[in-house]
């Protein structure tokens, strides 16, 4: 027992480092002078260090802490992209003008960011339902506070209140689903649940209800229709750096959780087969249900985004649509589907963070998030204008950007698994999405400026970060073999 615990700790360094960083930030916040981002740089160092210790886990495929946490290629992939997203969000926050007014409390901001990252890293690796719920709540509780961090703003306060109400209800419903699932199967870890289901159960109705309830909680976190209604309000009210981490990291972590939970709990004895891993539960056709949810997310997200004026709100609806595209890969859940989901998530990280970043830079300078106010910005800020155009083109999925490769793999996997109607809907909605993405570009380039023609000044540092997001977005469109290889090697879940 002691050996197992001691060994587990050696496999737990990344999480331990993030936790220690959290504690260091609390102390450093007391010691350093206020009005500086020192704590942010400490957190950045912590994330980088955690990333390095993660690389020590390459090739491991085991379960630690008595089947609480899985250390496998799948969790490694997700933790790496989560840390990458976290690092970018810290770099965004350092430059955000929205947070200037709250500099005396900035230590709390980074502390909560560390807590959120810890929760997300545990979300993608936990294999025990209790652990899973605790990680879920750790992420949620930190993000409720972060959304309302700019507390003098009415919008921010309102969005944080809406977030905690919706979030608490959906996680409560999920917990009730867990309790029914635990009761009917008599196991608290997902391997035990799988064994119990394989042995057969006579409680099909309760089992189906419980899985539906669990889907409510997870669907809420990935913001997929019909659990999407919170996303636009929360993204609009939250500081842009927090909206970015919610749209990217929190969504990625929830997908990791969803994939691990469903593919291990409900896999048949053969593991992930060509047709997917949905044979475990009788009754509802789970892949059809998820397919319909994905289709609805694509339709509702893209159609509603058409008439938005606030860029954050538009990106929120676009992220709902993207959740639909990614869910398409989850529906298939065969090896090919999982690979395409991981490629999509990796590319989505760069293009969506990039779009939020340029929105933040513009908001810093012109003090507005309205797309109407973007008129003439293409000439006043050439690099930022071109970058935003490329990010939006990539989000649409037009070659030669990364978004095209991402969509290509997802669509290809869906076609070869026989989900033709889903691909048709996805194709049509992609064309629709072009309209609202291009509207931003049109405003930037084809209209004269209404508020002065002087060029906007950005410092070198902000351009470097912009290029760090822009170059991968472009590069992944033409040279993506390493990512493909990385994703192919990362689909191995422990216990499959």
């Amino acid at each position: 027992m002691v050996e197992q615990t001691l060994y587990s700790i050696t496999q737990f360094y990344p999480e331990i480092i993030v936790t220690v960083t959290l504690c260091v930030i609390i102390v450093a916040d007391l010691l350093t002078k206020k009005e500086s981002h020192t704590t942010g740089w400490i957190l950045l160092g912590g994330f980088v260090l955690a990333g390095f210790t993660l690389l020590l886990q390459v090739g491991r495929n085991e379960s630690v802490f008595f089947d609480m946490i899985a250390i496998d290629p799948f969790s490694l992939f997700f933790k790496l992209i989560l840390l990458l997203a976290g690092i970018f969000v810290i770099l965004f926050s350092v430059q955000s003008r929205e947070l200037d007014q709250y500099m005396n409390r900035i230590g709390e901001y980074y502390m909560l960011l560390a807590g959120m990252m810890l929760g997300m890293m545990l979300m993608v690796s936990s294999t025990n339902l209790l652990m899973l719920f605790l990680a879920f709540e750790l992420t949620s509780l930190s993000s409720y506070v972060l959304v309302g961090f700019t507390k003098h703003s009415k919008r921010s306060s309102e969005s944080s209140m809406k977030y905690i109400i919706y979030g608490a209800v959906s996680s409560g419903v999920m917990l009730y689903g867990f309790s029914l699932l635990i009761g009917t199967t008599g196991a608290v870890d997902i391997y035990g649940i799988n064994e119990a289901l394989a042995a057969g159960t006579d409680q099909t109705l309760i089992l189906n209800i419980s899985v539906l309830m669990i889907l409510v909680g997870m669907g809420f976190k990935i913001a997929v229709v019909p659990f999407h209604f919170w996303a636009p309000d929360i993204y609009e009210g939250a500081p842009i750096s927090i909206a970015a981490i919610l749209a990217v990291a929190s969504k990625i972590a929830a997908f990791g959780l969803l994939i691990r939970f469903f593919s291990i709990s409900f896999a048949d004895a053969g593991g992930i087969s060509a047709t997917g891993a949905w044979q475990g539960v009788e009754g509802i056709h789970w892949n059809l249900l998820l397919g319909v949810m994905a289709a609805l997310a694509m339709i509702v997200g893209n159609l509603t985004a058409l008439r938005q004026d606030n860029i954050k709100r538009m990106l929120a609806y676009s992220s709902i649509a993207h959740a639909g595209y990614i869910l398409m890969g989850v529906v298939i859940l065969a090896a090919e589907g999982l690979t395409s989901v991981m490629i999509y998530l990796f590319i989505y990280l760069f293009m969506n963070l990039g779009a939020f970043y340029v929105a933040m830079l513009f908001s810093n300078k012109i003090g507005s998030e309205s797309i109407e106010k973007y008129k003439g910005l293409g000439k006043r800020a050439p690099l930022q204008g071109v970058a935003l155009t490329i990010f939006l083109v990539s989000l649409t999925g037009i070659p030669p950007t990364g978004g095209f490769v991402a969509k290509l793999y997802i669509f290809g996997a869906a076609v070869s698994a026989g989900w033709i109607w889903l691909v048709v809907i996805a194709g049509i909605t992609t064309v629709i999405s072009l309209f609202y993405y291009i509207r931003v570009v049109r405003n930037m380039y084809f209209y004269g400026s209404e508020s002065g023609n002087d060029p906007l000044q950005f410092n070198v540092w902000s351009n470097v970060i912009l290029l760090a997001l822009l170059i991968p977005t472009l590069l992944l469109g033409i040279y993506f073999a390493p990512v493909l290889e990385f994703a192919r090697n990362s689909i191995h879940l422990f216990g499959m």
Partner: protein
Amino acid sequence: MIQWLAEPGLTHFLIVSAILFSLGLMAILSKRNVIMVLMGVELILNSANINMIAFSRFTDLGLDGQMIGLFVIIIAAAEAAVALAIVLNIYNRFRSINLDEISLLKG
């Protein structure tokens, strides 16, 4: 019927928890006061707790159920603390905690 009521078993507890869950959901959907909505959330969390502990007592789940119950109580307390802080801030901004009056964000 009397006999069934006199000997409480797993079913009784599950029925109570299902009723509690429905009441919580009712409160969330019908109440306009934020505090009442949060109380509905507490009902939902506690109904899940009753389930866990009933399963732990009447099936071979063992102590795991009790353990989860303990953790859920802590989570519920943390969530209530955060929620009340947010509601206090809402009151300072809007001078109201009625959900219908707090709607700047829509569309």
